[in-house]
């Protein structure tokens, strides 16, 4: 087994060298910096310029982040790195707040139906409110029309 491991490590090094026309031969980042810059530019408030060093820092930080997330999720359940343990780690860790919507816990169909039903009840409750309020709005609109009609007739006079 150990020999196999060293083999795979060798091939990845070979790949790195064959890929590495310049930078990757010396720097150990493997995520593409240009791609990361593109993602950074999605930010609506992004600064005018991004120093190459800053780009490199975000690239390396992202690599550490991927390793960290994989390691922690794997430690929860050592059978395999599964979506369930990943979601559990994300939901329990406060500093991963920004991922709560991205990696939600999985739920069963029964739970889903229950939530749906609850939401339906809510919609039904608020639905009656909406209809009453829309009636009020309609009445207001009618009044407005009458008002404007009067104004127009005054103008004509």
């Amino acid at each position, binding site marked *: 087994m150990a020999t196999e491991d060293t083999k795979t490590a060798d091939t990845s090094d070979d790949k790195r060298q064959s890929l590495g026309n310049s930078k990757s031969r010396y720097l150990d980042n493997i995520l593409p910096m240009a791609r990361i810059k593109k993602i950074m530019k999605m*930010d609506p408030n992004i600064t005018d310029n991004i120093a190459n060093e800053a780009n490199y820092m975000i690239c390396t*930080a992202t690599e550490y982040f991927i390793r960290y997330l994989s390691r922690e999720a794997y430690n929860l359940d050592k059978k395999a790195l599964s979506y369930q343990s990943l979601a559990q780690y994300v939901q329990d860790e406060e500093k991963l707040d920004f991922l709560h919507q991205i990696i939600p816990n999985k739920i069963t169909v029964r739970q889903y139906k229950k939530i749906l039903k609850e939401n339906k009840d809510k919609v039904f409750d608020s639905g009656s409110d909406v209809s009453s309020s829309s009636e009020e709005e309609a009445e207001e609109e009618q009044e407005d029309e009458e008002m404007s009609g009067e104004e127009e007739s005054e103008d004509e006079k």
Partner: protein
Amino acid sequence: MSDDKITDLQLPLSVVQRLIKEAIPPNAIAKQEAKLAIARAASVFILFLTSSATDITSAANQKTMSANHVLTALKDIEFESFVPELEKALENYRNVMKSKKEKKLNDNSANKAAEKVDDENIEDDVELIDDD
């Protein structure tokens, strides 16, 4: 920007997969669904970190995001545990860039020398033709 494909904003899965394999024991299995979710999380992490670094850059009244802004941003979003390693990586990056620059300068001077030699050879050829 509108020409950009959505895949341009995702990280290459093969690279993400390699990073995941580095993090877990050699024989451990990583399920495909988990890999995809981690790749998605990494993209969101970039945006999250960028947004925080942007705030710090603007608060300092500067127009260029620097490495230090990113490091401060990491502390802000509670990932200060990455900072010591990143500082080492930054030092390495600066050294590599420096040696690259020096190498380029050397290459340029070497190229010029080579060109000169070529010129001389051509002149020799011309002389030969003249003789004929």
